[in-house]
């Protein structure tokens, strides 16, 4: 029954017409923005976040998640028809889909992408419930030492977001932690690093910094070049006809496989949509009867890739809601929205606000229903979106972030903080310091310090007692294993790049 209750709760929310309006808006925004190259879910969240402050939290969550659903579907249409992936997770769809499009089978590629996106989304919702409920039920076991270990787990996941240079990634995380610690000491309430400024005596507002790092930095970076998205794609293209069921049927196993892999990989903090899509694509090729078609127009590849990236939406929510660990930039902003509404991220989040759980399920379900009804026609909208003026979109997006952050507290100071974070974010993006890692550290830093120190206080300042608590010990050990694995994987990737570079030279 405890597994059915969230689904019933989610469905019952859908009796409200208001939530449908928000979800409809969110899905359409997500679909349109998903089609614009370089504007992913994180940037879209950054732009719409200020609007959510005035919404009811349930509607806000449903609205944000419908954007994710629309976005993951939207990014594959220009990828297939124009060879222009809206985001990194659509790259394999782009390779196979565009190959089919050039052979005159674009309709088949689009049809598979559409069915896979919807299938991945629908099947992943019960999986999300199955993974989240046990973690929520164990929430009462979490006191400060366990919370501290969870925060540490989140910190370790930053290694996955470090990019090409691990040292730079760790320094970016250090920057985020430093920013998070400014303000009152959690034990003594004395101000730290405030330099006499009243505005930062209690610390920085998290939302302007996150929007600055994740959205404004990218917008500043995009002004380096002046061009139109349409120029990259070439000629205008019309929407082909929907394929028959007989053509789609062979992709069903890869869609189901992609859904399961996408949800599970997405649930690993720091993984997200792109690794989910790539891993399921690789395994689908491994299991396929026609592996030679992968990379040259495989509908099974498109099915696995699309299902996985859509299923990762549900997967990403598992650690975010059940443990308070946001695994990606967009989840950081989602938690930022909840923080602005007065919710405290952590294992108690869904115990104190079960309606958020229902809202996430309701939002994703409603968004999927809207995509079932309008998704195929939406593709026409996406083709038009790619022809929007890129410079106008960038400047209006900047203006939206300014008014949005100003609306938080009607303080110009917050907007200056956002711009400063945006400038820092610009340099971080350009020189390989992970902005997502820094943003994640901003969210986790203060909580990690507070829980560590309060947790030690709880066990008479004894590290042995602290680490010998079962959940804390197991979680800390897991952290070390993950850290070592993350470093090993990054080292291997670096070696592979070096070998590739030297072979290209020779």
């Amino acid at each position, binding site marked *: 029954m405890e597994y059915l209750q969230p689904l019933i709760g989610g469905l019952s929310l859908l009796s409200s017409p208001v939530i449908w309006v928000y979800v409809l808006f969110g899905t359409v925004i997500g679909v349109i923005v998903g089609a614009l190259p370089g504007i992913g879910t994180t940037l879209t969240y950054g732009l719409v976040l200020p609007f959510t402050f005035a919404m009811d939290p349930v509607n806000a969550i449903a609205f944000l998640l419908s954007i994710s659903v629309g976005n993951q579907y939207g990014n594959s249409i220009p990828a297939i028809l124009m060879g222009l992936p809206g985001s990194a997770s659509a790259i394999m769809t782009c390779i196979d889909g565009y190959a089919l499009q050039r052979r005159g089978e674009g309709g088949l590629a689009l049809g598979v992408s559409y069915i896979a996106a919807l299938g991945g989304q629908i099947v992943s919702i019960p999986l999300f419930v199955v993974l989240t409920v046990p973690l929520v039920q164990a929430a009462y076991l979490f006191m400060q030492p366990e919370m501290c270990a969870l925060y540490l787990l989140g910190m370790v996941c930053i290694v996955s977001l470090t990019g090409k240079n691990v040292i730079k990634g760790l320094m970016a995380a250090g920057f985020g932690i430093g920013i998070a610690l400014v303000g009152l*000491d959690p*034990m003594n309430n004395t101000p*730290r690093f405030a330099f006499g400024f009243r505005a930062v005596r209690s610390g920085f507002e998290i939302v302007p910094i996150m929007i600055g790092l994740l959205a404004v930095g990218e917008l500043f970076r995009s002004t*380096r070049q002046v061009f139109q998205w349409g120029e990259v794609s070439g000629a205008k293209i019309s929407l082909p006809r929907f394929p028959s069921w007989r053509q789609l049927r062979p992709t069903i196993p890869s869609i189901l496989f992609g859904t399961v892999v996408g949800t599970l990989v997405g649930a690993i903090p720091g993984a997200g949509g792109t690794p989910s899509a790539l891993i399921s694509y690789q395994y689908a090729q491994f299991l396929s009867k026609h592996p030679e078609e992968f990379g040259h127009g495989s509908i099974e590849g498109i099915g696995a890739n699309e299902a996985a990236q859509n299923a990762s939406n549900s997967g990403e929510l598992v650690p975010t809601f059940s443990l308070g660990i946001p695994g990606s930039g967009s989840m950081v902003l989602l938690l930022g929205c909840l923080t602005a509404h007065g919710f405290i991220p952590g294992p108690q989040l869904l115990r104190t606000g079960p309606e958020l759980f229902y809202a996430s399920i309701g939002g994703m379900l409603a968004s999927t229903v809207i995509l079932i009804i309008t998704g195929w026609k939406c593709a026409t909208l996406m083709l038009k979106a790619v022809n929007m003026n890129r410079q106008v979109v960038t*400047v209006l997006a900047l*203006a939206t972030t300014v008014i949005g952050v100003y609306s938080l507290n009607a303080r*110009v100071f917050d907007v200056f903080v956002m711009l400063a974070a945006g400038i820092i974010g610009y340099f971080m993006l350009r020189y390989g310091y992970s902005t997502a890692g820094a943003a994640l550290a901003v969210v986790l830093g203060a909580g990690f310090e507070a829980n560590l120190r309060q947790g030690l206080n709880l066990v008479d300042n004894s590290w042995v007692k602290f680490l010998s608590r079962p959940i804390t010990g197991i979680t800390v050990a897991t952290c070390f294993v993950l850290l070592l694995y993350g470093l090993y994987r990054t080292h291997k990737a670096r070696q592979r790049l070096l070998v590739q570079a030297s072979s290209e030279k020779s």
Partner: protein
Amino acid sequence: MDRRYDLAIVLAFIAVGVLVIAVARTIPAGLHRDAVGSRAFFFGVGILFFVGGCILATQRLVRWRAQKDPMVPMEGTEDEEGKPASALRPAAIVGISIAYVALLNPLGYLLSTPLFIIGALAVLGERKWWRLIILAVSFTVIFYIIFAQVLNTRMSVGPFAPLFRELGWIYN
């Protein structure tokens, strides 16, 4: 990417690291003492910046003489291939954004926003002035209505304040 800028950023990190450690030393210990203390995390961050920065700077300097070209493989987000890029444009956009925010209170949202949009789009090469003006004004008005009237956000309207008060659109 240009290794000189990369090195400059690394050196900035080292300087910030030293500053963080120096300032952290002045944080009062407080009445409540615990095993970690008020300064430990800041020391950790400062040391991370300093040591990480030193490693990166050393790596860069060791290879400095071997390679004459200052451009090295990109570690961050690359520009779109085949399209000319300029660092001056983002610098100008940052300048305009700062001016916009600084003018937000004295000029008000309704005057500063169109100026920002027109200025920023002009920097990005848009020259169809009538289209720019219509776009800037319509965006500003629509967003003012959404935020100030629908979402009840308190927004500065600058010189329009007496008029809006008289019309009953604002109350303070």
